[in-house]
């Protein structure tokens, strides 16, 4: 299975994502933001970091970089595109997924483990996962998901909410919401469910010596679903 990780100026989880994808069997290539052509890929990942230093708005300048036109075309033709953290911020800026990511409610960067509840397994990302609650890691300053009421209705009608912040039992309550996201939303799909944007970092949870291993479950399952 072939994957591509895009490196923007200021990306800083690109290597971590490369390590994770290779660990679980992807043949991964790093792609420079200034390239035009996307290599032949089964999965394209927009990694975390601070592309363009978060200047203007998080993800906004990266969404206009050269490679992104190819990524957008790839997504529109049904290709799998996953944006993690800053990658999610870039995705909302391209319009591939609806909504925006505001500054965290308490105006502070948060780095910690969180639990997320999977809402929709009818997609390539989560199909066949035998767990409904994953322990993942967040590290962000702007992860407060927001959208209009109309958008929210549309998202809900189309089952586009991918993961919610919750506790270890999967209870979705405001007190388990780390950043003020509307409805505890931690990640969403596009309508077609081939594009996934989420704040938590599965690539930081890929061995028992790190924060946990639920990221391993995610990647193992993902590559099996793509095969």
């Amino acid at each position, binding site marked *: 299975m072939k994957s591509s990780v895009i490196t923007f*100026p*200021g990306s800083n989880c690109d290597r971590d994502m490369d390590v994770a994808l290779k660990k679980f069997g992807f043949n991964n290539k790093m792609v420079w933001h200034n390239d035009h052509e996307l290599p032949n890929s089964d999965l394209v990942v927009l990694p975390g970091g601070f592309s363009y230093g978060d200047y203007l708005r998080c993800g906004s300048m990266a969404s206009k970089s050269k490679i992104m036109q190819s990524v957008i075309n790839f997504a529109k033709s049904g290709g799998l595109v996953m944006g993690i953290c800053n990658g999610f911020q870039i995705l909302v800026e391209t319009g591939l997924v609806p909504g925006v990511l505001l500054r965290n409610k308490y105006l502070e960067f948060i*780095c910690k483990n969180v639990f997320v509840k999977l809402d929709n397994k009818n997609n390539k990302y989560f199909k066949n996962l035998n767990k409904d609650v994953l322990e993942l890691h967040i590290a962000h300053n702007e992860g407060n998901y927001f959208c209009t009421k109309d958008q929210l209705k549309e998202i809900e009608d189309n089952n586009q909410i991918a993961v919610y912040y919750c506790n270890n039992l999967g209870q979705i309550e405001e007190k388990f919401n780390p950043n003020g996201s509307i409805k505890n939303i931690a990640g969403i799909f596009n309508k077609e469910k081939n594009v996934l944007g989420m704040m938590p970092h599965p690539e*930081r949870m890929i061995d028992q010596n790190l*924060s946990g291993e639920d990221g391993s479950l995610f990647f193992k399952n993902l590559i099996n679903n793509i095969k």
Partner: protein
Amino acid sequence: MLVNEKVAIEHGLKVDEYKKICNLLNRTPNITELGIFSAMWNEHCSYKSSKLHLKKLPTKGKKVIQGPGENAGVIDVEDGDAIVFKVESHNHPSFIEPYQGAATGVGGIMRDVFTMGARPIANLNSIHFGSPQHKKTKNLLRGVVHGIGGYGNCMGIPTIAGQTSFDSSYNGNILVNAMTLGLVKKNKIFYSKAAGLNKPVIYVGSKTGRDGIHGASMASASFDEKIEDKKPTVQVGDPFTEKLLLEACLELMAGDSIISIQDMGAAGLTSSSIEMASKGNLGIEINLDKVPCRESKMTPYEIMLSESQERMLIVLENGKEDIAKKIFDKWNLDFAVIGKTTNSKNIELIFNNEKVANIPINNLVENSPTYDRKWKKSKLPKKNKIKKEVVKKLKIKDVLKKVLSSPNVCSKEWIWQQYDHTVMGDTIQKPGGDSGVVRIHGTNKAVAASIDSSAVYCWAHPLTGGKQVVAESWRNLISVGATPIAITNCLNFGSPEKEENMGEFVECVQGIGEASEYLKFPVVSGNVSFYNQTKDVGIKPTPTIGGVGLIKDYNKMITMNFKENDNLVLILGKTEGHIDQSLFARTILDEKNGPPPEVNLFNEKNNGESLLNLIDKNLIKSAHDISLGGILTAIAKMCIKGDKGIKLKRSKNLINEIEYFFSEDQGRYIIEINPKDLKEVTKILNKNSVHHEEIGVIIDKELIINEKTKVTIDELKSYNTNWLTNYMSK
């Protein structure tokens, strides 16, 4: 502008120093030259008050590849890998402008590390604030934490450990010490020594602006009521540019184009160009018209003294300019050939086709002033008699609650949750333990790092305090199973022109030297920050020690959380009941006098090495060093972390229970072992003559101190975790 004595004094030079400059040059310097002298001769760059004493520190060892004198120290961590590390202060700017001051402190220390060819793999920091009741403390703390996070998070380097303290002596002078570790191949280390004639001198990174002019001079003076006027001397950081600079430099370093490289830190272009030429025994010629500037009409004086961030100076091999330029273009960074190396042994500056400065480099470096300042020796204070009747009335549970929730002991999670501590995917021990630990990517090895200071002990008796900080760093590394290798120090003191402050400096350095010599834990890099004082009031002497150690197989790493019911808990090291200068004495008894606990280096070494031996034999389940707050505080923290309880035994020790639990004798650890290993553990400890005693057994969720006193783990957590969050949200 005409240069005279008055102008020289405005530049922070003393009258004698100005006269010396005129004599060395055999003429009056022009204003640019005076600026250059003032930048090179200030305390921050010249170490004029400290270098006589720093020379005495042990700096060599089998594992030391590079000691002090380079951008950072370098140690060998086997298999061709090396760790580059250093700690540096950014105290003065952080008090004036906490966000930018702290951010650029982090940026500066990371540049020091990647200048040597190393990719930064971990950041640490030691930050000290005034009394929590002081009106400035909360905003300073928030600003500093945001600044450290803002820079380190954006760079994508995990912040893996730190230290925060509060003491009213920092009311007018906070301390911000930042430390970085980088990883490099032993045969790919870059140094700052220029070599060869007519080699192109290259400027890369951000453009030069008017920010930070005289930053180093500001850091070499005390504060007064006009401190707000100094805001323009604080640099403004841009971590995004630094991230690009890091990647571009490492890309260029992969090839063979670079002869030498130096970051533009304190005193910017001045010190970087002069240091490179001086080390290579060469001259350097710079055409200032070629320096990329952010603002128009900048004068030679401003260009040379600007401390704009994220800039590097490189001496390249001839003919490599195009290769290098291509890399910096790719990363959208400025690249300019601004000069060349010469055989004149002078620094020569050209501006608008005129020579605007011409100074023999040895006058700036070797001939810089050195002072053997007067200093006052400290006496060991007399021991206090503990008021038995006061202690008798105290309830252990109340004392424990007060100690665990005191600002200097309470959990600092509010702080470190704002730092990305997991990026790079190799952090195997997060902040909140004895040391932070990161794996060496792709190997079985891991590096542990700890940052410590004990200003109260140093204030009470500088010699003992100096020893203690080194010993504590050593213990913190051993507690996670790392073999200590070397240290870096950041020496924060008041004015060297005051005999008391200078005495504190001299004796702390002596203590650091003695301990590091004995423990074979050499000093490989460091920095001195004097003049941490407002008007006449100096801070408590605060030497910060950053220790680094190696774990050869990270599967053997130890954490401090209690692991399993029925396991036995032992104390290594003898408890004598030393209460003076303990947190208990200061917060509960309100007793501020007396000597700090004695540091017995033989015991430190013996106890530490014996514990490492036990760890290596897989006999240790958890370990934690006993420091601030004594035995019971250490145990409570191990309970909180592990969500486990302990049933304590009545100690055979004859001293009073409170003294036993809260005294701060040195050289002690708490360890958890499996009961089946007790015999073997005891045998090894007895053989090595390590004092030890069994103190309890692990149970569920309750700390049972004696028949009458029990505390649930949830209670302990609430004591420990709430103070800082509540304080910051008020």
